[in-house]
């Protein structure tokens, strides 16, 4: 009775529409779902500044010396390095710096805060240097043309530096970094991270130096074939002001986002991609090339927004202690066939290696002495015989062909992110527990080797390397 009265009262109130309370409750019953939607939309990680990161195991208890670390440059590469660093124990992040304050900087600060670091964010590295007086190390992942200035400033402030490759976009820049390192006596690690990859170290130390399984290396080929990628864009609401762009050396937002393609800022694909692998050529051969010729150009992309060559095929000549080695390397950005790898060929075998997992293999020439010793020592997996083509299916084995070699795999895999061991090596070196795997001099040699490829394309000539150019 009471209820009915109430309801009829409600009806009276609403007058003409005859709505009962029940009508209203049911009519609006689903509105809260919109609220839920709004809440989850605001919560979700998007192309915005909320802290997002990989699932990272908390580093195990650490008893050594805790290092105070800062990061400079929090773009794509900076984030990759940060994610690796978060897996390394004994680091205390104090400061991060990025000129894209609303996006990159905010994201980095949020992520580090989430992992319990008390960090200060800076737009200008000079301000960071002024305020942060107790830094042990800095990780630099800014565009190439900033590397020299940033690295030298921190070295001179007494801070050890991990600087991304390419060391610099100019040979002079790279040279001044080595000078600064020598002058200050601080550590300078260059980010050629394959030098700390256990698989690469195994190949260099065990397979090449100890077992010498390839015999006389005569030829190398390598490639980084990458498919077409659109230019990097940016959310309009996070656009930097023209004034700010120019203050930091960029003319347009497109330049800021796609600096790797611009002359004077980056070095193009041969430097971004090739540098990693040509560094391995030099390292594995313990040598530097005497000459390079190269064919390349902006063949595919828009020339006014892609000043560096999108396709390059380069040929190096090395004079090693064992004799001449000819090496080809190609980087193309229009097709991803077979990805990236480096392949060393000697008269006794082939070593094909790649940073990406499951792509490496070692093949013994049929005429070579057996590798049983190395298999027994665990340097190589047991051989797998390649299947011979079945007869009668159009496969004719010509007398000029040699039988296919046995194939082995390398029993060492990296199960951490690619950059983690290299960063770990840097921090170990600071604590005096290791030697740097890629000190400034090595980075410099690679910078010279790679930057000369662009020169060879530009001038259309065979560039001879002057031995003095490698000497600092």
């Amino acid at each position: 009775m009471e209820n009915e009265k109430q309801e009829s009262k409600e009806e009276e109130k609403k007058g003409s529409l005859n709505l009962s309370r029940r009508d209203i409750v049911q009519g609006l019953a689903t509105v809260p779902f919109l609220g839920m939607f709004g809440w989850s939309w605001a919560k979700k990680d998007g192309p915005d500044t909320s802290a997002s990161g990989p699932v990272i195991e908390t580093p195990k208890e650490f008893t050594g010396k805790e290092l105070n670390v800062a990061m400079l440059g929090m773009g794509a590469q900076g984030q990759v390095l940060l994610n690796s660093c978060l897996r390394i124990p004994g680091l205390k992040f104090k400061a991060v710096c990025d000129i894209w304050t609303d996006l990159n900087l905010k994201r980095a600060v949020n992520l580090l805060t989430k992992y319990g670091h008390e960090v200060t964010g800076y737009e200008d590295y000079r301000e960071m240097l002024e305020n942060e007086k107790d830094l042990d190390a800095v990780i630099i992942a800014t565009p190439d043309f900033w590397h020299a200035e940033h690295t030298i400033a921190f070295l001179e402030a007494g801070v050890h530096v991990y600087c991304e490759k390419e060391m610099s976009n100019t040979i002079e820049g790279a040279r001044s970094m080595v000078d600064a390192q020598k002058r200050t006596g601080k550590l300078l690690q260059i980010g050629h991270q394959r030098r700390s990859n256990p698989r690469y170290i195994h190949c260099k130390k065990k397979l090449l130096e100890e077992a010498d399984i390839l015999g006389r290396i005569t030829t190398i080929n390598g490639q980084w074939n990458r498919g077409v990628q659109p230019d990097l864009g940016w959310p309009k609401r996070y656009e930097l002001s023209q004034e700010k762009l120019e203050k930091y050396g960029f003319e347009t937002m497109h330049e800021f986002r796609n600096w790797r393609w611009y002359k004077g800022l980056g070095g193009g694909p041969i430097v971004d991609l090739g540098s990693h692998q040509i560094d391995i050529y030099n390292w594995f051969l313990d040598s530097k090339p005497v000459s390079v010729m190269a064919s390349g150009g902006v063949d595919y992309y828009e020339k006014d927004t892609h000043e560096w060559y999108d396709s390059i095929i380069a040929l190096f000549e090395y004079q090693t202690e064992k004799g001449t080695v000819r090496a080809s390397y190609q980087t193309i950005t229009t097709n991803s066939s077979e990805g990236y790898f480096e392949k060393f060929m000697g008269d006794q075998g082939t070593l094909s290696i790649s940073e990406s997992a499951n792509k490496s293999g070692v093949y013994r020439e049929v005429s070579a002495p057996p590798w049983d010793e190395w298999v027994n020592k665990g340097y190589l997996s047991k051989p797998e015989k390649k299947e011979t083509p079945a007869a009668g299916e159009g496969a004719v084995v010509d007398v000029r062909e040699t039988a296919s070699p046995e194939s082995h795999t390398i029993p060492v895999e990296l199960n951490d992110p690619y950059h983690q061991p290299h960063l770990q090596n840097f921090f170990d070196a600071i604590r005096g527990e290791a030697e740097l795997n890629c000190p400034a001099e090595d980075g410099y040699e690679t910078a010279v080797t790679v930057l000369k490829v662009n020169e060879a394309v530009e001038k259309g000539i065979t560039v001879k390397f002057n031995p003095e150019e490698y000497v600092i």
Partner: protein
Amino acid sequence: MSFDKNEQTIGSGGIIALTLLRILIGWHFLYEGFYKLAQESWTAKPVLNGSKWIMNGVYSWIADSPSMLSFVDSLNMYGMVILGFGLILGVFTRWLALGGAVLLLLFYLINPPLPGLYYTTPTEGHYLIVNKNLIEMMALVALVFIPTGKFFGLDRFLYAFLKKS
């Protein structure tokens, strides 16, 4: 064709379940719409270009015509947002359910998983003729015939208003 009267009542449990179904589908539309809107440069172009089967010609034509493409893009994004809001709130429920079903049919026809058609872009599951677009479409068709908004949703006010006049 008609059924026994008893078989036609779906009961309050049925109404609540179907209302929830309507809300879930609305949510899905709303998020798809918002997500696309949030990506400043979203376009249906690559999807349309990958179209196979009978609609291939029409979809390629849309993809290649900038004005048609931008019209279709906006229609898509705003359409989905409107469908999302409408289905969650339960307003013009049956009309929106019909519109959503048509939209989903158009999506289905872009790349239907028919035997003999091969797609290089991977999908998140495995389908033969029936995929989630088709199922979601059929769920909306069901909602065209069952006026859930009349029970839970702003349509309740609409019905009250119509009854009055």
